[in-house]
């Protein structure tokens, strides 16, 4: 397809001279697409070059620790041949100049892959315009010039011009019909360990997050929230709390049924509660303790993890929704010749425990509502706040601030709605601060998933059929939740049943892939050992055949184009990481007692990540992960330093879930509250981590999430190897491993 570049790229001058490049960025990065559902995709200002040579790259993505605030500008600077020291990165705020998808979402490990084509084009266009301007000035051909580090050199005369000197002239030129993008060998910054641009500010203590927001007349609010999902505020007594010096006001928060029904049930959900507004954060926190509040838990008020499990088990034989049906599993399971192996796996709720507790600051006066918040989705936030406040979206302004970790939780608009609500009532700027306890108890948790897997094994020692029944609480069901098997068995059937959740749910680093990987990758390990095969060899054997993915009509229209090629790509990458592990001797079984090794592999988007976990049984801690080796195929790596950090972080994130994750719930209430009982990994538990990126020149894919899904199954498989104990759930508790230590003690 020939893309008309004028449709997605615009060149203009700047006030005071200079060059501005604007881009129209559609969802999924299909550049050249100019409308979506009849709405024109606007141009977002992306690159400016000032007469003094300063290059500003606008950051439209939310910086939350994933590093795209450095990586995307790196790509632009490379194509532009800019001097990295002259590049400034400016976090832009949500405005009509920056809209549509571009400011919609930061997540799904998609920031780089979705902008890759467009931002390279933008950088290369700016460079070509500057070259053209130089060519006109010197009246020499472009081939007689050399471009490097923000300078253009006239090879005939030896004269040099800096980009700033050419910016104004370049801004008057038309968008070139075509630009030539660099080849892999020509990259200067891409593929290099460029340092994160936020570091200096962070180490000096000057980095500002949502929670650091300040302004004149600011008051502070904290909300005693209903501890039960969908529960209601019944009554409250604030007489004692009102006596506390510095308390400014106390009132309930809640919305009419009509407003509630207009809000997105997940992203716009706000707990009912009692708001304390005070002169300081501390006074607001303190006054909450003096409140006496009664809640009505409604239907969730009687539920628990035990009752949720019972609900799931009750549905085991009544599967609701067929998600994959290949061949016919029936005869394989009914044949008396075949042996059946059945297992149950549990992957429970997980809390986020973001370092920066949730917050938002709002100034709602007259009919304008201004919000300062770290959000992964400014556009949704504006929409949800507008609905909750019953005003139009153009009255809501969101300033997107850096956040102290998001991991999916900061998609939700709850804190922004709360801040808008309280500010409207107070007619003052208000900062709403969640305590750590709020953050744990009222988190939007990773959904609970239970899987029943069974396999029919023939007398020839082959798996002839496999069935996977998923019992899911997940509310945001989309086609991506389609339960599939990438290993080619002759007969496969997958189904999913839905059970109402007891806790509010949301996205959690790697979402459904983390949930799904545990049962799939543990069961395959169990099958390999049952068949007396090496787990890696067995996977390789199954991947040597292609799965028939069936009728693409099951996919939504927009997914058909890329789903089948995507699945082919994943299989190629899975084979590649497996081969790498074998070839480089990373898979070394040990015979040392109490030590074991485990393998698992998963994908997130087009990135495939395999992990090898090495564990030791340890009387004091149950088990200890000594080393994790990650083999990652994500196409080209834009920044190996930041990329490695993301994989390390994902491993530590997932290992926290393996050791301490899950969530106890009684009478609808979360039983943990802070880091003493909702534990996360600390430095003294850090395993050695090795990250290997498969060499590739393919287009870059995401790295923020793919390291998470394979970790839990790799560790569980390693624990089996070390102890002979098969744990089919996380977290792995001391009691799960007791029999090992008891038997060791006896021998």
């Amino acid at each position, binding site marked *: 397809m020939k893309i008309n570049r004028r449709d997605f790229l615009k060149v203009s001058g700047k006030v005071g001279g200079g060059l501005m490049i604007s881009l129209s960025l559609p969802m999924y990065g299909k550049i050249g697409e100019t409308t979506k559902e009849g709405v024109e995709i606007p141009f977002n200002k992306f690159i400016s070059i000032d007469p003094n040579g300063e290059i500003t790259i606008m950051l439209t993505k939310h910086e939350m620790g994933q590093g795209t605030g450095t990586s995307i500008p790196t790509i632009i600077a490379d194509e532009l041949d800019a001097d990295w020291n002259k590049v400034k990165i400016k976090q832009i705020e949500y405005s009509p100049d920056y809209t549509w998808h571009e400011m919609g979402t930061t997540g799904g490990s998609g920031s780089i892959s979705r902008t890759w084509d467009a931002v390279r084009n933008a950088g290369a266009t700016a460079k070509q315009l500057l070259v053209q301007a130089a060519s006109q000035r010197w009246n020499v051909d472009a081939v007689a010039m050399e471009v490097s580090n923000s300078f253009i050199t006239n090879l005939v005369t030896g004269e040099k011009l800096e980009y700033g000197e050419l910016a104004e002239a370049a801004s008057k030129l038309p968008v070139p019909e075509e630009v030539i993008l660099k080849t892999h060998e020509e990259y200067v910054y891409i593929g290099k360990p460029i340092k994160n641009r936020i570091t200096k500010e962070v180490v000096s203590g000057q980095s500002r997050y949502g929670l650091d927001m300040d302004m004149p007349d600011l008051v502070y609010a904290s909300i005693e929230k209903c501890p039960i999902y969908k529960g209601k505020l019944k009554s409250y007594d604030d007489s004692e709390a009102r006596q506390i010096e510095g308390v400014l006001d106390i009132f309930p928060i809640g919305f009419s049924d009509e407003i509630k029904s207009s809000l997105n049930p997940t992203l716009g959900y706000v707990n009912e509660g009692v708001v304390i507004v005070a002169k300081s*954060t501390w006074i607001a926190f303190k006054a909450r303790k003096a409140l006496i509040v009664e809640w009505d838990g409604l239907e969730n008020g009687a539920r628990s993890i035990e009752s949720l499990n019972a609900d799931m088990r009750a549905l085991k034989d009544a599967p609701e929704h067929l998600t994959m049906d290949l061949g016919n599993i029936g005869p394989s399971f009914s044949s008396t010749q075949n042996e059946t192996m059945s297992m149950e796996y549990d992957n429970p709720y997980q809390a986020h425990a973001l370092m920066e507790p949730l917050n938002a600051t709002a100034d709602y006066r007259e009919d304008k509502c201004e919000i300062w918040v770290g959000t992964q989705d400014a556009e949704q936030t504006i929409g949800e706040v507008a609905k909750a406040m019953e005003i139009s979206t153009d009255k809501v302004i969101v300033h997107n601030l850096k956040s102290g970790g998001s991991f999916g939780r900061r998609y939700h608009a709850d804190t922004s709605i709360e801040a808008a609500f309280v500010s409207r009532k107070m007619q003052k700027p208000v900062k709403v601060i969640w305590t*750590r306890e709020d953050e744990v108890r009222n988190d939007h948790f990773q959904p609970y998933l239970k899987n029943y897997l069974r396999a029919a094994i023939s007398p020839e020692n082959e798996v002839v059929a496999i069935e996977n029944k998923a019992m899911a609480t997940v509310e945001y069901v989309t086609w991506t939740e389609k339960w599939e098997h990438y290993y080619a068995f002759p007969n496969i059937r997958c189904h999913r049943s839905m059970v109402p959740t007891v806790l509010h749910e949301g996205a959690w680093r790697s979402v459904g892939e983390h949930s799904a990987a545990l049962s799939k990758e543990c069961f395959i390990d169990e099958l390999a050992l049952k068949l007396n095969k090496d787990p890696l060899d067995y996977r390789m054997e199954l991947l040597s055949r292609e799965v028939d993915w069936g009728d693409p009509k099951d996919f939504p229209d927009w997914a058909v184009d890329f789903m089948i090629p995507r699945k082919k790509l994943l299989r190629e990458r899975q084979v590649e990481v497996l081969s790498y592990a074998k070839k480089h001797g990373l898979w070394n079984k040990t015979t040392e007692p109490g030590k074991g090794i485990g393998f698992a592999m998963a994908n997130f988007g087009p990135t495939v990540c395999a992990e090898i976990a090495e564990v030791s049984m340890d009387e004091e801690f149950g088990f200890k992960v000594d080393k994790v080796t990650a083999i990652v195929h994500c196409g080209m790596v834009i920044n190996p330093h930041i990329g490695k950090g993301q994989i390390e972080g994902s*491993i530590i994130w997932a290992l926290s879930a393996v050791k301490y994750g899950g969530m106890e719930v009684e009478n609808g209430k979360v039983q943990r509250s802070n880091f003493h009982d909702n534990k996360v990994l600390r430095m003294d538990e850090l395993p050695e981590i090795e990250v290997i990126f498969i060499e590739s020149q393919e287009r870059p894919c995401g790295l923020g999430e793919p390291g998470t899904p394979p970790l839990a199954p790799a560790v569980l498989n390693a624990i089996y190897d070390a102890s002979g104990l098969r744990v089919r759930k996380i977290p792995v508790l001391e009691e799960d491993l007791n029999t090992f230590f008891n038997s060791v003690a006896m021998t």
Partner: protein
Amino acid sequence: MANYTLEINNNSYSVDVTPDTPLLWVLRDVLKLYGTKYGCGIAQCGACTVHINGLPMRSCSIPIEKVNGQSIRTIEGLSDTADHPVQLAWEEVDVPQCGYCQSGQIMSAVALLERNPNPSDEEINRAMKGNICRCGTYARIRSAIKTAAKNMES
């Protein structure tokens, strides 16, 4: 409310707050020293670590009445231009991801190196395990501490 005199980063401040107000909220809400972060409020995560008389302490759990007149150092007081050897080492290794916990990590690391200029892995773990990082930058924190130790020695 009561009046307290605080010696912070070699400056003297006078604040009027209730005696039970944690130092953290005085630093942040009253003195607007936002480098010190709120993470848990119960001395479990280390994000609010400051030095009191040279020792690393969790400012979220120390009432202001307990530190009246004592010498307090926050991340802002480490250096004028972020050139304390530990800050430089953090830059050299390029530790932060989201960066939120790093003020606390740096303050704990500075205190460690002040009393033990050449810590072993074991000693680093012991001194740093009170500081949580959810992005998982632990390996780089450890490496930065060693870099700082080396640079401070030479």
